């Protein structure tokens, strides 16, 4: 983890002079919203404290509401396309907090500096703070509407679909304690969200 942070810092330092040069093409944004989780997929296999094995697999219904917020650094590829680097925080399932770092491609029907509809796709890696296995990943697809408030500020609103892959701690059904990692054979979970978002962008 520490090595990853060192790499990120190094990359930012190297990119900084380029960023200064590209200032006119850069924008920043904050995005936030709420997600509704109707279903999730699990694949888990572990040994309990009483030494029997539990295998579970398949789609499960779940009803959670989770919030998310992210910060984005946006770069204009052309009049209609932008590429952004996003860093955020979101809740998944019942209590795990993950920090996704992603790359987003967005396409605006009438150009990014006008009132317009737009869509985007984003993919990235994430850090799960609340589980023994920290690695996670997030993918997003969305459609939004951009409204120019004036000058260099815009407000965006829209809908997005999110899929988060992560590895939450497993609970032993007998002892209700967390299953130690050495007793876990497989453990993955995919949460699929339907989300509403609002964003404010400055450029």
């Amino acid at each position: 983890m520490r090595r990853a942070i060192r790499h990120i810092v190094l990359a930012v330092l190297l990119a900084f002079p380029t960023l200064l040069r590209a200032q006119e093409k850069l924008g920043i944004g904050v995005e936030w919203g709420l997600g509704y989780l109707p279903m999730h997929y699990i694949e888990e296999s572990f040994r309990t404290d009483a030494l029997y094995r539990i295998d579970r697999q398949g789609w499960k219904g779940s009803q959670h509401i989770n919030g998310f917020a992210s910060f984005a650094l946006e770069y204009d590829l052309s009049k209609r396309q932008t590429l952004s680097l996003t860093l955020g925080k979101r809740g998944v399932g019942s209590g795990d907090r993950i920090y996704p770092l992603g790359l987003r491609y967005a396409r605006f029907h009438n150009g990014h500096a006008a009132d317009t509809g737009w869509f985007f796709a984003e993919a990235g890696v994430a850090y799960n703070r609340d589980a023994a296995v920290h690695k996670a990943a997030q993918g997003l697809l969305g459609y939004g509407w951009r409204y120019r408030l004036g000058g260099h500020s815009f407000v965006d609103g829209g809908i997005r679909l999110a899929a988060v892959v992560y590895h939450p701690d497993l609970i032993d059904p007998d002892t209700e304690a967390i299953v130690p990692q050495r007793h876990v054979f497989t453990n993955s979970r995919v949460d699929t969200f339907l989300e509403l978002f609002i964003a404010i962008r400055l450029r």
Partner: protein
Amino acid sequence: MTPVPFLRRKVLVCLSVFLCCFLPGAAQEQYVGTVQSPKGIGVFYESGSAEQVSHLSFTLDFDGILGGHTRRPGFRIGFQKHFFVPVYRLADGTDLDFFYGPGLVAGAVRDGGDFQGPMAALRGIAGLRFVFPERPFALGFAFSADLGVHMQRVAGQNSNILRLYRGGLRRVWLPEIHLSYRF
């Protein structure tokens, strides 16, 4: 500006007249908007002049929602006065104002526990507001604090106790974003 369709205008006028009955002072500027925060989301109505407005809000309280502890949000109704101090005018004509004001808030919230009990509090709010000249929108960033009481259930007993509403002070650092439409 595009004309507002007739039906929508009628609904907005009815809503405005209804709300004006409760708000003192002559209405010159009117705003309808949403408040967005990790503390909760809601809608508000503002009426007043460029120097001060009366602010009436209905908010869903997200205590325990975002952490996944509950799925049932609390609610709060608030009344505030906002006083505006012009700070700066940007090159494109956007006005930046500082605003502050006192208020009252009441509702039913969890405040960290499981029981959704009634609360009432005094509220203080301060923030910055951008008013855009070309478009009928305003954008505000604010912080607010609530000092008041909350009714909680005593564990294991069928009785209630009145305590300090801790959530109002604990969540002061969480920002609020006000996005509003001006008539």
